[in-house]
Structures are given as C-alpha cells and as structure tokens.
C-alpha cells in the first residue's frame, strides 16, 4: 500500500479543520471496508487519512425521541440490523443493513460510510429514501440538513463537499401505520454486491414509496399516491402498468460485470412486484 499520513483527531472541530486545510488530499476513515481497498489498489490516493473513531461527537449509537430516530454516522451495520426500534419501525433499513457484505464487513462498515461512498448499489440508500431520512452534515459554515433525496448525485459523488462530514442520519418516525421491505438481487447467496436493490413502503393512507438502486448513476425514489399500488384488491395488470411508469427512469449501464442491463430491468420488475406485495402484507399484520 502506498504511504500516507494518518491523523486521529479527538474533536469534531479538529477533524473539520484537517479536512478544510487538505481538501481532496484528505479522506475520512470510519470502517475502512471501502477506503482501505481503494488505498491498496490506488484508486484513492490521499495524502492524509483522517480517522474519525476517536471523536466524541461521532461516537456510534442510535437515539430515539417520540418522533425521531437518529443513527450516528459511524454506527456499524451489525448494530443497525439488531436494533429493536429500527426493526420495529424501519424494518427495510434493518434488512438492508443485515445483507451488506459479510459478518466481518457488517461489524466494521458504517452507515455514514455506506451513503458517503455513494455506490449506486449501496444497500442502505434505498431504505433511507423510502423513510425520507435527513443527513445531518457539519462543515466549515456550521451544521446543515440534507434530505436524502438530494444527497446522492452520481456514483461516488454526494452533496457533501470535501470539507464536510456526515454526523448522523435522522429518520422521522411515521405518524401512520406502515409496511416496508428491502429486497436485492445478487449473483450468489451470501456475500455479494447487489445487481438490483429495491425498498418499498406502503402506508394506511394508500401512499406507496419505491426506491431502487444499481440501475443508474444514483438510487431513485418514486412516490405513488393514487392508492392503486397499495390496494390489496387492485389487479396485477393495474399495478404492472403503474410499475412500468415508475421503472421507466431506470438506466442500467452497459459496462457492469455483475449483470446485463436487460437482466437488471427484468429483475427490477420482479423485485418491484414482490416488494409491493410484501409491504402490503406487513401493513396488514397487527
């Protein structure tokens, strides 16, 4: 591995100052499950690696109030997947966190790292989209809030500037009853990157949100408010027509080795139908 210098700031202010002084020559480190691969293969060549794990303001953890669940950006997938309230109210996020990589990867990989890497195939991106999460970001000008739908720009690029840090991810606790699910298609069971990711939420007002990834430069969120998708009695034909419109925004690339564009588009429809059906079932459960 090419040499770099390593900093382990003990305050958020020091970390932000390091990033501000070094711009794109600095890379933040949390779990390292993406960054260390890139340091080794040379696709990331920072002068300074800034380890965020000794900063009190960035300690991992999940906090709840009556209307909000806040996940620290450094929280590991293992802890998100196992958290009781995440499982109860944000099941698609727990399901997504539980399928990232392997046990070894989930013990290390953080939610903040997963979204800041902005892989179109990131498993946690689509559940955060259906739950209308907000990313809390610290930068030189202070703290700001970025709705997750504005966060992903394209593969490897987010709304963050090089001098910004994601502090936490807020999930508003739904005021309505909801059913939700996360599904993915991979080449092998177990440890693999997804060829298609799909999250779906339906609520008791008939609103359906579908978010899907790995079929374009950024994950896409579509909200459907006619009530047809969420209606257990609507015909398959009526739902299929709506899903066709929803999936028309998918633009899978030709170049990927994981799956052809044709396969991804076919699986998008399969997972879409399946996700809507599961979300409806879960909404109906007491």
């Amino acid at each position, binding site marked *: 591995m090419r040499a770099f210098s390593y900093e382990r700031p003990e305050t958020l202010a020091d970390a932000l100052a390091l990033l501000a002084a070094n711009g794109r020559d600095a890379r933040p480190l949390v779990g390292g499950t993406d960054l*260390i*691969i890139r340091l080794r293969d040379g696709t990331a060549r920072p002068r300074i690696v800034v380890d965020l794990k000794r900063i009190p303001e960035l300690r991992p953890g999940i906090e709840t109030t009556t209307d909000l669940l806040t996940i620290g950006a450094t929280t590991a997938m293992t802890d998100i997947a196992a958290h009781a309230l995440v499982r109860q109210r944000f099941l698609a996020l727990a399901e997504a966190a539980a399928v990232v990589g392997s046990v*070894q990867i989930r013990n290390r990989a953080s939610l903040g790292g997963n979204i800041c890497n902005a892989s179109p195939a990131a498993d946690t991106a689509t559940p955060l989209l259906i739950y209308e999460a907000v990313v809390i970001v610290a930068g030189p000008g202070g703290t700001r809030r970025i709705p997750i739908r504005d966060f992903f720009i394209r593969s490897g690029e987010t709304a963050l500037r090089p001098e910004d840090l994601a502090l936490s991810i807020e999930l508003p606790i739904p005021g309505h009853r909801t059913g939700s699910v996360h599904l993915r298609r991979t080449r092998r069971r177990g440890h693999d990157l997804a060829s298609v990711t799909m999250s779906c939420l339906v609520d008791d007002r008939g609103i359906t949100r579908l978010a899907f990834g790995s079929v374009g430069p950024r994950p896409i969120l579509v909200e459907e408010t006619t009530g047809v998708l969420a209606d257990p009695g609507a015909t398959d034909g009526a739902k299929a027509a709506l899903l066709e419109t929803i999936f028309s925004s998918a633009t899978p690339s030709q170049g990927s080795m994981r799956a052809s564009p044709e396969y991804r588009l076919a699986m998008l429809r399969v997972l879409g139908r399946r996700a809507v059906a599961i979300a409806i079932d879960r909404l109906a459960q007491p």
Partner: protein
Amino acid sequence: MNDDVQRLPISVTVNGDERVLEVAVHHTLLDVLRDDLALTGSKECCLVGECGACTVILDGRTVDACLVLAVEADGTSLTTIEGLASEGRLSPLQAAFLDHGGVQCGFCIPGQVVSAHALLQDNPHPTRADVDEGIAGNLCRCGCYEQIAEAILRTAEASGR
C-alpha cells in the same frame, strides 16, 4: 524512502498478551500480525474483504484484518487463530473441523474457525441457516462447506449449553 513513512506506537492485547509496538500507519493489521508479530495463522489472500482468510476477532467481533489499519487496532483486544488452542490442545471446535473432514487443503481454515468461534460465542445454538450466514464471509475453494457446517453444528450440540 523509509524516512517518509509515518510510524506510530500502538498497544494491543493479542491472545491475552499485551503487546506494545511501533507500526507504519499504512500497514494493515494483517501485515503487522504476520510480519511484525510472526502470527502467520491469519492468511493473506484476496485483500478486498471477500474471502475471510484473514478473519480475526477485534473487541469481540470478527473483522477482515486486511481491511483494518494496524493503527486502528490501538487500544483493542484481539483474538487470532493462534489464541484458540490452549496448552497445545485444540479447542473442541478445532477438533471437530478435523473429525468431520472440514480441513482439506487447509488454507481457509484459520478464518473459518475464527468466524465459527465468534458465531458460537454469540449464538451457542445456531441453526443451519445461522451457520451458513455466519460463515458467508469465508470462502473455501475445496468446497468443504457441508463438512464445515457439520463441524460447527456438532460442536454446538456437544457443548450442551
């Protein structure tokens, strides 16, 4: 050229022994275990966190040592494959891997055993599905998954907890 390399002292507990050493900040935990501490049980293989041959337990959780910088391990407690046998005797899990034919070429086995050890610590009575998920991050090119799963399940049964 080595003048440019930043080195930092770290203190880690490795298989119960406190170790203080100085590491290059761009060296991984796997580099330091193998090259500086001569603990060569953890294997270097894919170096991208897919094969699990370098699996170690860091503060109670398995990690791929190829994806952790050695400096990140400062202040932690590690268990490697070398820490599972005691006084020259294999742990029941290690013995079960041999008894059930889980060990063929042997290269992936340190990682498999460490993952299985951590699985049984968290979940003393795993189902077959729990075992498959628990070792999904450990590849075996000899294809001994059935024998390895059998060894893990029999160890859990025999422990009788």
